[in-house]
């Protein structure tokens, strides 16, 4: 923690706070009925996306999931462009064609959210194999949930990475639920996802995904290993999702008081604030100022998105191919 300078810390807070504000605002906006389709909120898991992406360069590639907003923001996607996309506008990051589940920005190394659980892991290995050819120490990172770790593609990807010694990184965000089923049920009896990665011969790390510093430090070691040519690695983060699986989920599977408890005890933003102010690294007022800036940014993004133009229906079949004779 002490290795991070003032600006780095403030930047990390800004990104986490931006994700949180983005998601909490979406939670409200969705109630207006203006946003349709599936929206999966990342609130609660911010320390993972930011603790990891803050250590990546723009040349490193990440592949995300259906719950992708946090990864996008952490990797540097434009927040307004994202909001416009989620509103389905022509000016959205993907021209309104993708929506919440399919946001990508290749210019910042964000290869895409993915509506298919487990779809991304092999792609991250592909990006890692590409990085290996280039030999510049770049990596490919796959974010996966505890549910996604049961999909065949995730296993195949891990094995392929080990066999080819690809600089691939598997980040397992264990928020303990896949939709409405608990990891205690769906992830075999071993329960620990990292140990599966270990069985492929990968080096693994485990960390508290609600603690920015714990996540950051574990991933720093992991990244050193992978960038140094040590082969692929995996990290399992114990984290929490603050909202339902998707917006509209009645969450009857939660225990009594569960959400209050995780919000009180496992909120990565509160924890971060307490740590950095307690250690005298950042002042509470600085953080408050960030909160205000972030709120203004999100307000502006929503206002812009609401007012923005829809795509021209005549373009519906554009952009399917680079060229098609």
């Amino acid at each position, binding site marked *: 923690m002490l290795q991070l300078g003032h600006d780095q810390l403030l930047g990390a807070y800004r990104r986490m706070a931006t994700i949180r504000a983005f998601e909490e605002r979406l939670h409200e906006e969705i109630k207006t009925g203006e946003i349709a389709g599936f929206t999966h909120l990342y609130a609660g898991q911010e320390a993972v996306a930011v603790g990891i992406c803050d250590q990546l360069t723009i040349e490193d590639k990440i592949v995300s999931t259906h719950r992708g907003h946090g990864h996008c923001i952490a990797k540097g996607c434009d927040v307004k462009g994202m909001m416009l996309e989620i509103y389905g506008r022509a000016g959205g990051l993907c021209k309104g064609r993708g929506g919440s589940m399919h946001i990508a920005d290749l210019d910042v190394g964000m290869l895409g959210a993915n509506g298919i659980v487990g779809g991304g892991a092999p792609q991250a290995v592909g990006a890692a194999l590409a990085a290996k050819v280039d030999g510049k120490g770049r990596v490919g990172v796959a974010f996966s949930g505890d549910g996604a770790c049961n999909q065949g593609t995730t296993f195949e990807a891990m094995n392929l990475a080990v066999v080819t010694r690809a600089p691939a990184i598997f980040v397992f965000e264990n928020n303990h639920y896949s939709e409405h089923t608990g990891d205690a049920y769906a992830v075999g009896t071993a329960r620990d996802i990292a140990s599966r990665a270990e069985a492929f011969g990968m080096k693994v790390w485990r960390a508290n995904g609600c603690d920015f510093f714990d996540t950051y430090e574990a991933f720093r070691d992991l990244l050193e290993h992978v960038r140094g040519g040590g082969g692929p690695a995996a990290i399992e983060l114990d984290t929490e999702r603050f909202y339902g699986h998707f917006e509209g989920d009645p969450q009857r*599977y939660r225990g009594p008081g569960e959400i209050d408890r995780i919000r009180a005890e496992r909120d990565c933003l509160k924890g971060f604030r307490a740590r950095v102010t307690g250690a005298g690294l950042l002042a509470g007022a600085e953080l408050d100022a960030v909160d205000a800036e972030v709120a203004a940014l999100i307000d502006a993004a929503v206002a812009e998105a609401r007012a923005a133009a829809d795509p021209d229906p005549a373009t519906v079949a554009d952009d399917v191919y680079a060229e098609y004779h």
Partner: protein
Amino acid sequence: MAVMNIREAILSTLHAEMERDSDIMLLGEDVVGGNGTAGGPEAIGGIWGTSAGLWAKFGPDRVIDTPISESAIVGAAAGAALAGKRPVAELMFADFVGVSLDQLWNQMAKFRYMFGGKTRCPAVVRMVYGAGMQTAAQHSQSVYALLTAMPGLKVVLPTTPADAKGLLTEALRGDDPVMFFEHKALYGVKGEVPEGEYRIPFGQARMVREGGDVTVVACGRMVNFAEKAADKLAADGIGVDLIDLRTTSPMDEDAVLDSVEQTGRLVVVDESPPRCSLAADIAALVAARAFTSLKAPPALVTGPHAPIPFSRVLERAWLPSPQTVEDAVRRTLAFR
């Protein structure tokens, strides 16, 4: 006759058939829901509401929540069927045939043939399909053409609650693998459903209306669009023969050909991109087998050769609509 919606028709049919036949078992993601959580099993009961109460009634050996592993879900259904059961596997979205196709296509569909006709594989795979709810490119597709093309599979698409009951019952009584398509935008559609045992044989289309001027063939949600178009056309004195295929494999070719022999004009409405589609299949059938009756080129109303977009306006532009069906009918009738 009870009035219910398609969701209720499916759920009540599963309850009734599972009671009747102890070989029926159900498996899929969150078909129970709540397993491994503080809320406990059946905290949810199926994200589409089509399996509520089954776990409580039939127990965990017959109603099985699975991890996110569609190949294993479909493969387990295939294996259980070979072993003498009647499994019902649920794909939460039909788009997930992408991650389970081998078990559908190279396994389930081919067992009987490869094994010399000595095997039965009575597995039913229920899958939720269709666009119209902004679920975007990976959660909106209508993959019935892909599966219709595959010998060994039967493909079923109910459009009314009565048909949902009759066709699902038939699927659960037969001895072949059945792909059972449930349109996400049709679950709430209400209608009368016969009480007691009710089976609809596969390969018998439903003649939704007879009008005599033009034949419109559709399936799934497109039947509703075609009906709306037919209403508007009727106001102008244009009579539509509207055929709801109900099952695309086997397909009621006679219903289509008989109608076209009368009308000489064909419009096919298909919620999918155009290439190698069901629309093309039917147009080819008619061109090959009712050639001399045809008075106008067959008209194919489909989406464009593009994935399904997220934005509301784009999705609407992608989908066929009552208006595009009506336009196609008018163009077809105008042809001389």
